[in-house]
């Protein structure tokens, strides 16, 4: 039993070691700037593994994950860019100030700005995302197949249109100059090149924590219920699993992961734009989960890391969207179980055995 437990965490340990290794390599080779895109990838990975739980483990397709990402990002972008400097005498600012919830900083133009601590907007972001997932999830998760896909996509489109059509969300321009998020007295989440290594480790630490949470969830009693749910909803129902409730809870977890990802990304980038809420982005998360092997959080993590890293570095050039389209089509046609799965490695090993080792024999 204990050995089993340990085995579950082996990938976590390897991930941690790999994160360390990558940083050391960039340090030695003087390519520290690569950590910028690796940090951004980490935040997208967080949203993707959340979706992986919903799609792979609960078996519910969701084409609105970007909507939850945007909820997290825009919540903090709105709340932490309200400037209280000229309104400090008001009732609410005074109350916030007495609770040490206001922070002052200097902008690049030399003005001072007093804003709400992002801790408050983090809590708000998570609560709003969870509430939205609950309200949308209860009716919508009763649907199946195409209807569910369309309903979740509809949710994403509504978020996108509201963001685009509302002044407070900056309409098409998005929100800029979002202040850094001071997590500890000596560390903040921001795009400052000087604290890039810290941000890289922080982002992946959060991802590791999320993975540990998910591993525990998958292997818990409710996790087994989940597995039953994915197999056959009717059977799970008959066994006394409250399928409706389980689905909604997983949907909410996925939403909270995405909102947290959006929150951190917005502070890291110093802003957010409507493209983060687009259907194209939601489809991108789906393709990452699909190529990672649907019910495989590690596959999703790896593909999320690699694809987002390449995309954010502009490797795909003008073909950025096309690449994700090709991935969707090819994976569904030839590897419906995803690219990262055991069989692929057996295939590779067999291939190596056949072609390379045999040739050596000649």
């Amino acid at each position, binding site marked *: 039993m204990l050995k089993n437990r340990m085995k579950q965490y082996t990938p976590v340990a390897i991930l941690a070691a790999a994160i360390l290794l990558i940083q050391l390599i960039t340090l030695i080779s003087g390519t520290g700037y690569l950590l910028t895109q690796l940090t951004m990838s980490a935040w997208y990975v967080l949203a993707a593994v959340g979706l992986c739980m919903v799609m792979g483990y609960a078996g519910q397709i969701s084409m609105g994950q970007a909507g939850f990402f945007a909820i997290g990002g825009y919540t903090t972008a709105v709340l932490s860019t309200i400037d209280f400097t000229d309104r400090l005498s008001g009732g609410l600012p005074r109350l916030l100030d007495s609770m040490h919830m206001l922070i002052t900083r200097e902008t690049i133009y030399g003005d001072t700005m007093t804003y709400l601590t992002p801790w408050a907007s983090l809590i708000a972001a998570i609560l709003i995302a969870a509430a939205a997932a609950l309200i949308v999830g209860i009716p919508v998760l009763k*649907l199946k197949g195409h209807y569910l896909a369309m*309903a979740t996509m*509809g949710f994403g489109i509504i978020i996108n249109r509201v963001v685009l059509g509302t002044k407070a969300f900056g309409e098409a321009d998005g929100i800029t100059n979002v202040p850094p998020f001071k997590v500890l007295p000596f560390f903040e989440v921001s795009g400052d090149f000087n604290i890039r290594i810290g941000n890289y480790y922080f982002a992946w630490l959060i991802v590791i924590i999320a993975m540990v949470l998910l591993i525990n969830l998958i292997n818990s009693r409710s996790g087994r219920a989940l597995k039953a749910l994915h197999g056959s909803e009717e059977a799970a129902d008959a066994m006394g699993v409250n399928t409706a409730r389980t689905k909604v809870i997983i949907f909410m977890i996925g939403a909270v992961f995405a909102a947290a990802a959006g929150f951190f990304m917005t502070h890291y980038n110093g802003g957010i734009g409507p493209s983060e809420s687009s259907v194209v982005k939601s489809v991108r998360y789906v393709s990452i989960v699909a190529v990672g092997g649907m019910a495989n959080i590690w596959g999703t993590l790896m593909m999320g890391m690699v694809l987002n890293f390449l995309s954010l570095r502009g490797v795909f050039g003008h073909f950025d969207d096309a690449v994700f389209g090709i991935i969707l089509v090819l994976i569904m046609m030839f590897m*419906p179980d995803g690219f990262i799965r055991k069989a692929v490695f057996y295939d590779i090993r067999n291939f190596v055995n056949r072609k390379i080792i045999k040739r050596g024999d000649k």
Partner: protein
Amino acid sequence: MTFDQVLQYIFSGITVGSIYAFVAIGYNIIYNTTGIINFAQGEFVMLGGMIAYTFSGFMALLPSVIIAVLLTAAVGGVIENVFIRRMRRTSVLGMIVITVGLSILIREFSLYIWDEQIRALPFFTGSEISSVEIIGARISPQVLWVLAVTAVLTVALYIFLKFTLTGQAMRACSENPKAALLCGIRTDRMISLSFMVSAGIGALGGCVVSPLTQTHYAMGSDLAVKGFTVAILGGLGNPLSAVAAGLLLGLIESFSISVLPMAYKDVISILILLIILVAKPSGLFGSRAAAALKDY
């Protein structure tokens, strides 16, 4: 609101609604024979407009529209033969994912073939500035073309599905594919045909509305969402009620603009979609009992 304005909103709603109906009919035809929702349906409308525009540079309007419809139908056939056929035994989830992937690919391809510019076919009769007065409201003659083509198409489709052998075979496939196969209907062929017919219908729609709405490589995905809303509103699997639902959604959107900012127009139609999905998934005109038998 004066009577003139009401009438104007009605005409505007019907024009937009006809476009949605073209997409929704396509969804339904494919859904009927395969149980697949083809999320690439909106791209056929775009392809139709683009191909017709390209050919109208060399020849008269009518032959270029015919070529556009035929070529797009061929694209539909290719999509079915190359991609969907190999996928037939996989999950609904897989089908959704692959058709979404295909729609992205068609869009990106079109960007490389036709670049980012917008295009518009010439008006079928009259020109951009001609206008017809109908009981106080003024509309472009092209709107009449759109309405006429929608009407003719609806009637033709009804006759085809109801009275021709092929149409009946297609309907049989949707009701019970195994039984259809046993009766000697070649379901494979019916499925290919359904993709080609719905692609062709989408392309025809794309040509007729192109003078009014213009054609742009990225127009497909928005239409796909609206078309799906309409298909569900009318009851999935029923091409004829899709026409009624399309006109209804067009009218709702058109009148919503008279009270709300237009930026929220899509929010309204999607909210309607969500409400229908949750409250009456069989659609406004569909029967609940029939819907319960279907596997979405």
